[in-house]
């Protein structure tokens, strides 16, 4: 079936087999392998993408549901600052050592961006509640929480003269 959607800010028209997961479409057809698949059972959050701005698990979303929607993946974040520079949330993960192996990181960052967009000044408790669907086997979460605190501030700071 034909679907029309916006992928990382650009309109796309694709012919998809209905029984295709968005995680499969991204990784296998579109070669956007920044979206990771950890559990494939909607538990770990590694596959999190933004679907109309909402953080959702792409391993539990069907490609046909994309029709008419806007999808943002980890690859699309840096584009929002108009260059190859990292998104402020990615920068904050880098600065605050918010990753070790990095497997969970794309999902963490996408969840964090959705959270900080809706709640520009999140408390630590709000961040921890917001991360309940994202598992990390390495960091112990402490630096992820610190990254998101800093990233939220950076995302919502007025851009300084370029």
């Amino acid at each position, binding site marked *: 079936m034909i679907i029309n959607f916006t992928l990382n800010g650009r309109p796309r028209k694709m012919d998809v087999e209905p029984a295709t997961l968005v995680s499969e479409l991204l990784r296998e057809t579109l070669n956007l392998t920044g979206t990771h698949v950890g559990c494939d059972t909607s538990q770990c959050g590694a596959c999190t993408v933004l679907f109309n701005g909402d953080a*959702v*698990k792409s391993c539990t979303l069907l490609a046909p549901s994309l029709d008419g929607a806007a999808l943002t993946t980890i690859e699309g974040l840096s584009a929002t600052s108009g260059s190859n520079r990292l998104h402020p949330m990615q920068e904050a993960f880098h600065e605050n050592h918010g990753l070790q192996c990095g497997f969970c990181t794309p999902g963490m960052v996408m969840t964090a961006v959705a959270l900080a967009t809706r709640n520009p000044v999140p408390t630590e408790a709000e961040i921890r509640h917001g991360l309940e*669907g994202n598992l990390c086997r390495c960091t112990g979460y402490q630096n992820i929480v610190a990254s998101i605190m800093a990233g939220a501030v950076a995302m919502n700071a007025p851009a300084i003269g370029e």
Partner: protein
Amino acid sequence: MKSFAFHSPETVPDAFALLNDVSESKLLAGGMTLLPTIKQRLAEPAALIDLAKIPQLSEIAVDEDALVIGAMVRHVDVVTSALVRSKVPMLVHLASGIGDPAVRNRGTIGGSVANNDPSADYPAAVLALDAIIVTDRREIPASTFFTGLFETSLEPSEIITSIRFPIPSTAGYAKFKSPASRYAVVGVCVAKAGGSVRVAVTGSGPCVFRVPEMETALETSFEPAAIASIKIGAAGLNSDIHADAEYRAHLITVMAKKAVAAAIQGL
């Protein structure tokens, strides 16, 4: 996944026509239960009838003395609805504890109620508030809707369109959650409407059930202390890796007291 056809009707009658005409077809809400089920090959539908493009199913409204929540209203929509917060704040608290943000961004009240998972949160609220499940053809009272483990009184091609919650004087929900999924190990919803009180328990038996002994005690005195000494029998309760039946029985009283305290605070 095995291949299937995908249909996106724009009206409820069109959805019904597809569901009725296409053999082995299934309704798709947020897919939070259905897609994992298909991935595990526990279901192999020939077609999915997506309800996402029927705008009417995503409405939240007040109609006389009831809060009416459309079947496709997502958990996040309940959490952020000023109307729900002002009429039945307990539902905001309940919805905000379901799963995680990504689950709340896709999962729906209609899908949750239709699925009737023994550990789901909404069935407790539906039963305690004496809600009505409105479908494409009739209105089903909560008391006859939940019939057993993943079983409801829905007919094969019946579509839930909304849930009508009579607005209570006050209500509270408390759950002891599984730390991994956040599903209820034991969840108790207590609702007071005028002089009558209903107590509904989820997570504990094959399906949600009421506790008449607690209801009578709370009708006399709406305080946690009124039910503190009521012991629930473990017979018939679930035993699994999360909790055995005796522990669940104990937790029912503990969670019921917390739910009453939450109701008194108007949460």
